[in-house]
C-alpha cells in the first residue's frame, strides 16, 4: 500500500470526523463532490451532514467557522485555493486571530489552504501565504512537507485550541507518497532535521524541502555535506533546532517559495543573526521566489521559484565564503 500527501490529508480528516463529533468540514464543493482536489472525497457520504458545501463566500465561511468554534465545535474550513483566502482575510486575522486574546476563550478552527505553485496555474492559483498569516498574533501556521506531516499535523491542527492556518502544498498532492500513515510524530512547533550534514544548514519548508534535499544530493557529489532543516511549522518557528544546526555548520541558507520582502526567510535569518551571530562563519543567505506575481508559463514559473539548481548555486556561493 502507498498513500499520497493528498490522501493523507483526506485520511486525517476522516479520522478527525470519526473520533471527534465536534469536527465538521465546510467549504466550496467539499460535499458530495469531494472538493476541488478531492481532499474530502467520500467524507460527505461517510459522515452525513458533517461535510457541508458552502456558497462562494470565503468571508462568511471563515466567519461561520469562528462562530461554530465559539460554540465548542472544531470546524475544518477548506479554501479552494490559498489565493482566495484574501477575501476571508479579515475574518482570519481580525476575528479568529484576536478571539482568544480578547475573550480568554479558545477559537479552534483549522483553515486548510491549498498553496503553492504548480505548472500553468498563474498568479492567482499559485500563492503561498504563510508569511502573511504568520505576521499576525493569534495564529498558528503549519507547512507540512511530507505525507507523514500532512497527516499528523492536520490531526494535531484540529486538536489545537487556536486557529491554525494549514498550508498544504498542491505540488505535493499527488506525487509525494509514503508507505503508511505515521503512528507517532514530532509535535507542532518542532522542526525536523531532514538530512544531516556539517558544511551548511539549509532551512526550508513545504515543497521547498524537496528542492533543498535535491540540492543537497547534488552538492554531495561535490563533497559537501548539507544539513537540511524542515521547519514544519513557520509559526511557531523552532529557532532552537535551526540554531543548533547552524552551531554545527556555521553557515545558513534559508529557502522559501514566497516573495522576497519579509516573510519566513527573513524571520529565520533575523533570529539566527540576532541570537546566534557568533555561530555564523559566513553571512546568512536566503533564496525566495522573485518579486513578481507567480507567472503562468512553465518557463517563467520554473525561474520564478527556487529550485534544486538555484538552491545548489546559492549554497555553493555561500560555501566558498
Amino acid at each position, binding site marked *: 500500500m502507498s498513500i499520497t500527501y493528498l490522501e493523507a490529508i483526506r485520511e486525517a480528516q476522516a479520522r478527525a470526523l470519526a473520533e471527534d463529533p465536534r469536527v*465538521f468540514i465546510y467549504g466550496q464543493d467539499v460535499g458530495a463532490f469531494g472538493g476541488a482536489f478531492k481532499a474530502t472525497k467520500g467524507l460527505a457520504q461517510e459522515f452525513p*451532514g*458533517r461535510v457541508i458545501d*458552502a*456558497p462562494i*463566500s*470565503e*468571508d*462568511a*465561511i*471563515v*466567519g*461561520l*467557522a*469562528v*462562530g*461554530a*468554534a*465559539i*460554540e*465548542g*465545535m472544531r*470546524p475544518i474550513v477548506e479554501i479552494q485555493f490559498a489565493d482566495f483566502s484574501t*477575501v476571508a482575510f*479579515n*475574518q482570519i486575522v*481580525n*476575528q479568529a*486571530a*484576536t478571539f*482568544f*486574546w*480578547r*475573550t*480568554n*476563550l*479558545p*477559537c479552534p478552527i483549522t483553515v486548510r489552504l491549498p498553496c503553492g505553485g504548480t505548472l500553468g496555474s498563474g498568479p492567482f492559483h499559485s500563492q503561498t501565504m504563510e508569511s502573511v498569516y504568520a505576521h499576525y*498574533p*493569534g495564529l*498558528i501556521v503549519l507547512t507540512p512537507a511530507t505525507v507523514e506531516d500532512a497527516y499528523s499535523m492536520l490531526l494535531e491542527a484540529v486538536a*489545537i*485550541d*487556536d486557529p491554525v492556518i494549514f498550508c498544504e502544498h498542491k505540488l505535493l498532492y499527488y506525487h509525494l507518497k509514503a508507505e503508511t500513515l505515521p503512528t507517532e510524530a514530532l509535535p*507542532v*512547533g518542532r522542526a525536523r532535521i531532514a538530512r544531516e550534514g556539517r558544511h551548511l544548514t539549509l532551512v526550508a519548508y513545504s515543497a521547498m524541502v524537496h528542492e533543498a534535499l535535491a540540492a543537497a544530493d547534488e552538492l554531495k557529489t561535490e563533497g559537501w555535506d548539507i544539513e537540511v532543516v524542515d521547519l514544519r511549522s513557520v*509559526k*511557531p*518557528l523552532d*529557532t532552537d533546532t535551526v540554531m543548533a544546526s547552524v552551531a554545527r555548520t556555521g553557515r545558513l541558507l534559508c529557502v522559501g517559495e514566497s516573495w522576497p520582502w519579509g516573510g519566513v526567510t527573513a524571520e529565520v535569518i533575523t*533570529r539566527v543573526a*540576532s*541570537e*546566534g*551571530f*557568533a555561530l555564523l562563519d559566513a553571512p546568512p543567505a536566503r533564496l525566495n521566489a522573485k518579486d513578481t506575481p507567480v507567472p503562468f508559463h512553465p518557463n517563467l514559473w520554473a525561474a520564478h521559484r527556487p529550485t534544486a539548481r538555484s538552491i545548489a548555486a546559492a549554497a555553493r556561493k555561500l560555501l566558498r565564503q
Partner: protein
Amino acid sequence: MVQTVLDSGRVSDLSAIRGVYLKAFRIMLLARLLEEKLASLYRAGKMHGGVFIGRGQEALSVSIGLSLREGDIFAPLIRDQAGRLAFGEPLLDAVRTYFGSVLGPMRGRDGNVHRGRPRQGLLPMISHLGAMIAVVNGALLARRLKGIQGTVGVASVGDGATSTGAFHEALNQAAVERLPLVLVIANNQYAYSTPNSRQFACASLLDRARGYGVEGHGVDGTDLIECLRVVGQAIARARAGHGPQMVVAELLRLCGHGEHDPADYVDPQLKNSRLGRDCLKVAEEFLLEHGWADATSLAEWREETQRTVEEAIAQVQREPTPDPFKESWVALSSRHLCETHEEEVPNPGADI
C-alpha cells in the same frame, strides 16, 4: 401562531403587555442615563478612546434583548446598550469595558462597545462592520449540529453596514442554510456622516429581503410597542423554523456618530420628522397617557436609575486597571505554542 414577548394577537388588549412595556421602559432609561453619563465623562476628558451611544435607538434595541431568551445568541451593534442590558449583560460590563477595568469581561484588552460574553451567547464585536453576522450563523449551525433546537440568533447592524460584502455573504449563507438568524437593521439614516442616499439606491432596505429569500419586517423604530411587536414576531418566526428574518427599523440617530462628533450634517427636516422623535420620550408619553406611570413615578425611576449608574461608575473607577507586568502577553490559548520574543532585546548575559 408563534409566541412572542408581546403576543401580537393581543396588542389591542393593552393591559396584557403592561409588564413587558414597563420593563422595557426601565431598561431604556437605564441605557440612556448610563450613556449620558459616559458621554459627559468623555466630554470631561475622562475616557480612553471614543464613546458611542444609542440615543434614539433604545426602543428597537431593548425589543431585541427582551425577545431573546437564555441560550440565544446576540451580536449587538455599537448602539445596542439597551438590548445588551435586556439580554442580561450586567451593567458593570459596559462600565468596566469603557474604563478598562481588569474585572471586566475584556480585562482592558478591548474597550467601549467591544465587549461580550460568548459563553452567555453575547458575542464581542470586532470593529469591522458586518463581520459578526457570519459568526452568529456559525453559532447557530453549531447548535443544529449538536441537535439543540429552538434557539435563535440576532445580529444587529446599521444602514451603513448593509453595504459591506460581509453582510451580503452572511445573510445569503444564513438563507442557504435556513438558519434561525434574525438580522436587525437599524436604519438611523446615517452612517457616520453619510446619508442613506449615498449608501444605497433601493427604495427601502426591506426590498433586500426577497433577494435573499428571507422574510422581511419593517418597523417604526421610534415606537416601543411596534418594536416589541415586530422584533418579537421576527424572532418568534425564526425560532419556529421559518428561516432567516430581516427586520428594518426606521429611526434617526439622535447623537453624533461618536461623542466627538457634533453631527451638524444631519438634515433638520429629518430631525423634525416622525423619524426624529425620541423613542424614550414617546414611551414616556405613552406611559402617562395610559396611566401606567405618573410624573412622580417617572421622576423616581429616573433618580433611582441615575443612582445605579453613578454607583456603577464610582465602583469601577476604584477597580484595578491592567498592569502590563502582570499581563501574559500571549495571543494563543495553547501557551506552549507561543513564541517568546524576549530575544528582541539582546540579553547581555546571552552566550553570543
